[in-house]
Each structure stands twice: as C-alpha cells, then as structure tokens.
C-alpha cells in the first residue's frame, strides 16, 4: 500500500486476518475503499463480511494484518477516528424499554466529543432523516423490524460523518424501505460522505455503488470500480446448429477464445470485441447451418454468483 493510496482511501486493510480457533473467518484481505465512494461489500452470509467490519471498527482484534480508517491506524486511533465514522453493525440493537429518541440520546451522551448543546437538535434531525420522528416517543420494543433498522441508521447519522459503515442495512426491510435506504445512501454520497455498505443481496445495493468488493469464504475474490468488476466477465456467443464441429472451427478461425462444441446442438466462444454481425456472416459463408445465435452478456448478478460460487455448500 503506497502512501498516496493511504491518503485517498477512507478504509484500507492489509493482509487482514481473523482466526477463530483453527478456522480463518477472514483470510488476508486487502480492502481499499476510496474516499467519496459508495463501496458495496458483498458476499454470502458467513463469508466474513461482519467480522471484517468488526475489525475495522475495533470491536474484534485482527489475528494478523492492519486496518487504516480515515488515515488512522485501528484500533490505536479509535478515539480520534470513530467520532468521524457512523456505524451500524450486524443489525440494530437498542434498549427495548427506552424510546427510540431516548436510545439515541444515550448514544449521543456516550460520545464525549459531541456537543451536548446541540444534542436534542441532532437527535431529531437524525430521526427525521430516516422518517421516524413520528415514532420517536415509542418504546423500541414496539418498533417493527423496518423501524428498528432505520433507528440503527439514525444512530449512525447523529453527527456529520466522513465515513458510514452500514452492515446489512436493508435486512428485513420491505421493497419500499430498501428503496428509501438506497436513496439515503445516494444522498449521503452526493454530500461527499464515503459509504461502506454490506449486503448478501447484490440487487439491493447494486444501483448506488461506485465500487464493489466481493467476499467468499473469508477471502476478497474481487474488488474495484463496478465496471471493472463486471468487466472481468466477458460476453459469450452461442451458436445453435446441427453441426457444432463446423461452427466451432469457424469460431476458432475467427479467433474467439475458449471455443467449445457440445454434443450435437451448439458451439460457444468468448466474443471479446468481435462484432456479432461478422461472426454470423462468417458462419453463413462457411455453410454452417445456423438455427440460432445468442450473445450471453453476463449481468453483475451472474458475475456475483460466479465469484461467490453460488448457493450453500459451494465453499465446502
């Protein structure tokens, strides 16, 4: 990690590892969250996202590796760095018999760098921002799951932050609530706040992210700007034909990569910049009986499934 990188990154980890007993929950990851970006931290449940986030925030001590948060080493710089970070870790947690507002007031009082004179104002502003002001006086135990999630986000917004770390903020929200959280992240992004948002569902946060990091079984298997992560997956041409061997020969001659011909119905090849119409024309000129021609452009979703191995037990 060069010094320049260190300055441009809101979150940087190097070889970050956490072992619980013999098992590595997080295995040597180099996270790089650029300042001002919205970083989607993706991975199936149990892939190590939450443990990573706990290490970023100083809740869990790394077994190896380093964490730099807003330029400060964690956990050593915890007291100066964390007031500039708003965080929702592994779902909301509040005192059930206190009201939503009383819970936020308690957290604000606990922040010894927060000005008590503006406390009431900031608490109400945070509640307003997540549309909970109407339920501020209700006990937390009477909140719905969605309201609880929003109160958790409000706690992260008690002060102006440079970085927001939101762990699964859309968990348990209905589609409307999920949309609202996305809109909120977008608005914060527009204000210049860096956001690290984790999810096990790509579709819920894909639209607002500028960068993605994908975890699988404790390792960071992909990371970068959204286009780069998506781009790593290339479009594939598929020819449906009764003579796949002939079709494959043409594809190879044209220079397509990874050409395969299966059984008796189709041939495939990675298109890589070859114009579709040229390929079709070449096939026809070569006398290949073309019954169908399809280009598979992998969506980010496909890429995500490909990276994470898809489904349970894929990492066994």
């Amino acid at each position, binding site marked *: 990690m060069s010094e320049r990188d260190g300055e441009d990154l809101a979150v940087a980890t190097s070889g970050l590892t956490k072992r619980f007993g013999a098992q590595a929950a997080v295995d040597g990851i180099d996270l790089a969250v650029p300042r001002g970006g919205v970083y989607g931290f993706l991975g199936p449940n149990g892939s190590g996202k939450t443990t990573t986030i706990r290490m970023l925030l100083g*809740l869990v001590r790394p077994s190896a590796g380093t964490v730099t948060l807003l330029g400060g080493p964690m956990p050593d710089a915890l007291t100066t760095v964390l007031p500039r970070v708003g965080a929702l870790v592994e779902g909301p947690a509040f005192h059930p018999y206190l009201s939503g507002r009383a819970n936020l007031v308690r957290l604000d009082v606990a922040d010894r760098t927060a000005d008590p004179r503006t406390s009431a104002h900031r608490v109400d502003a945070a509640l307003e921002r997540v549309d909970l002001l109407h339920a501020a006086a209700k006990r937390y135990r009477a909140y719905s799951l969605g309201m609880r999630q929003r109160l958790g986000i409000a706690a992260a917004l008690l002060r102006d932050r440079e970085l927001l770390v939101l762990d699964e903020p859309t968990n348990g929200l209905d589609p409307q609530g999920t949309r609202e959280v996305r809109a909120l992240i977008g608005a914060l992004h527009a204000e210049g706040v860096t956001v690290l948002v984790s999810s096990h569902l790509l579709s819920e946060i894909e639209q607002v992210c500028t960068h993605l990091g994908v975890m699988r079984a404790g390792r960071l298997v992909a990371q970068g700007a959204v286009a780069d992560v998506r781009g790593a997956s290339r479009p594939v041409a598929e020819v449906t034909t009764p003579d796949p061997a002939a079709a494959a020969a043409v594809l190879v001659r044209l220079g397509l990569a990874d050409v395969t011909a299966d059984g008796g119905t189709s041939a495939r090849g990675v298109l890589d910049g070859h114009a579709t119409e040229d390929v079709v024309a070449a096939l026809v000129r070569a006398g290949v009986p073309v019954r169908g021609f399809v280009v598979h452009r992998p969506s980010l979703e496909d890429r995500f499934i490909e990276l994470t191995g898809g489904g349970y037990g894929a990492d066994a």
Partner: protein
Amino acid sequence: MRTPDDTTDDATADTTADSVPHRVPESIAETVRGATWRLLRSELRLVLSRRRNQAGLAVLAVVPVVIAIAVKVAGGGASDGSGSTTDSFVGSVAGNGFFVALAALSVEIGLFLPLAVAALSGDAIAGEANVGTLRGLLVVPVPRTRLLAVKYAAVVLGALLAVALVAVVGLVAGAALFGLHPVTTLSGTTLGLGAALWRLLLVGLYVGAFLAALGALGLFVSTLTEQPMGATIAVVLVSTLMWILDSISQLHAIHPWLLVDKQLAFADLLRDPVYTADLRLGLLTDLAYGVVFVTAAWARFGSRDVTS
C-alpha cells in the same frame, strides 16, 4: 435557542460536505467537558428506570418496616438472648427506634444487599452485550476503560443508594413507632443522637465498601459472559458460599481470605471507643478484592473480541 447553524464555535456544526470533505477540524475529536459525568448520569437513569431495579429497592426498603412492625406487635423483648449481633440490635429496637436501621442492615447484609449488587454488576457489561447495545456504545466510541469505569461507578453508587435506603427507611420507621433517643452503645456508654447518626453513616459506608468489593467481583464475571442472569447468579452463589464457609468454625483457616469474614464488624462502630482492629481488616479485604477484580475485569474486557 441556538441551532447548530449559528453556533460558530461548535465542532459538530462543521459539515463534512464542505468543499474540503477530507479535512475535519481537529476539534471534532476533542473531549467536551463533563462528558464522563453525563454518561454516568445517563447510566444511573437507565439503572433506576428499570422496573426490576425499582422492585428490588422496594423489597430492600420493606425489611426495616417489617422489623419495626414485628417488634411493635410483639411488644418488645424479642431477643431470645442468643447473643448474635442481629438479635442484639433487634432486642434494642423497642427501647430506641434508631436500632431498626442497624437491625435491618445486619439482616440484609447476608443475602438481600449482595443480591442487589449482584443484579446490578452482573448486568453491567453482560446486559449490554446481551441486547447488543455494547457494540453500539463501543463504536460511538466509548473507550473500553471509560465504559468499565462508568459501569463500576454506577454499581457502587447503586450499592450506596441501597444501603442508604435501608438505613433511612429504618430510621423513619423506628422514629414513627418507637421514637429516636440517645443511643446506648454495645460498651454500655451513651451517645447523643447526633453522634449516633454519624456512627450510622460510618456503618453505611462500611457496608458500602463491602458491596463495592462484591460489585468488582460482579463486574469481572459480567465481562466473561453475555448472559446477565448467569453473571448475577454466579455472584450470589459466590457471596452465599462465602457466608456459609464463614459460619463453619472448623474452616477458620480460610476465614481471613473470605470477603464476608469481617463484614458484621460494622457493629464495632457502636462500641465506645470504636473497636477498629476488625474494621481495619474488613476494609483491607474489601480493598484487596476490589483491586484484584477491577483489574481482572479491565484486563479481560480491554482485550476481548466483542462478537455479540
């Protein structure tokens, strides 16, 4: 009314959305004065607003009332002369309401007061871990040492409140049913009521020191688990076990090591002059237990992974 926008010297009003979002004023991480007191106040409010704790205080307060009424109804002379401290105090109630407070303290020191402290201290860290609010506090951030200090301070203040409540209710009930008079000490001399009340205050502080030491043990246990009820039960078990061991005279060799061994010596404060040997040992034991377990709690909590 001041709003953040017109408070120019206000660190929190500086928005990071300005033209230079990466630079934050130094003052944003500066400590606001009195922050620890405000956190302690918030902690005490939280503790006192819990129904469970309010009910616990009510139970503690009922005991002196029951003692006073029982003696009144029985018509005095309740002591069967077996000579225990409690009997001696209860026996003196009919003549002087002042002794209701002492009788209540000596009755409650065995179980009720330790139980109250066990409930408070067991809940201190484990309770927050159990509902998940611990991680919220730590990322605020509340440095772990500070959180532990505030939690322990709240436990000690809670214990002192419990002792004060028992003593004051005892005095009020005693005054109402028997009146308050100059106090005959265990040595046979007589103390004026004012001097006797000072002695009662010292008794309260002595019992408070014992409970603070027990609270340190509870705080430590509370850092070991995410189950507050488990921590509370463990502390009550340890406390009760020590009282039992202390009552078995064949085990006198280990008695000096037990936290509870010299606690009933608070009665020595009502001798004239005050007999200090046992009191001193008692305070020394309190201090030793307190230091050992607060340190253990700090060592444990400071390095622990918070995964709740």
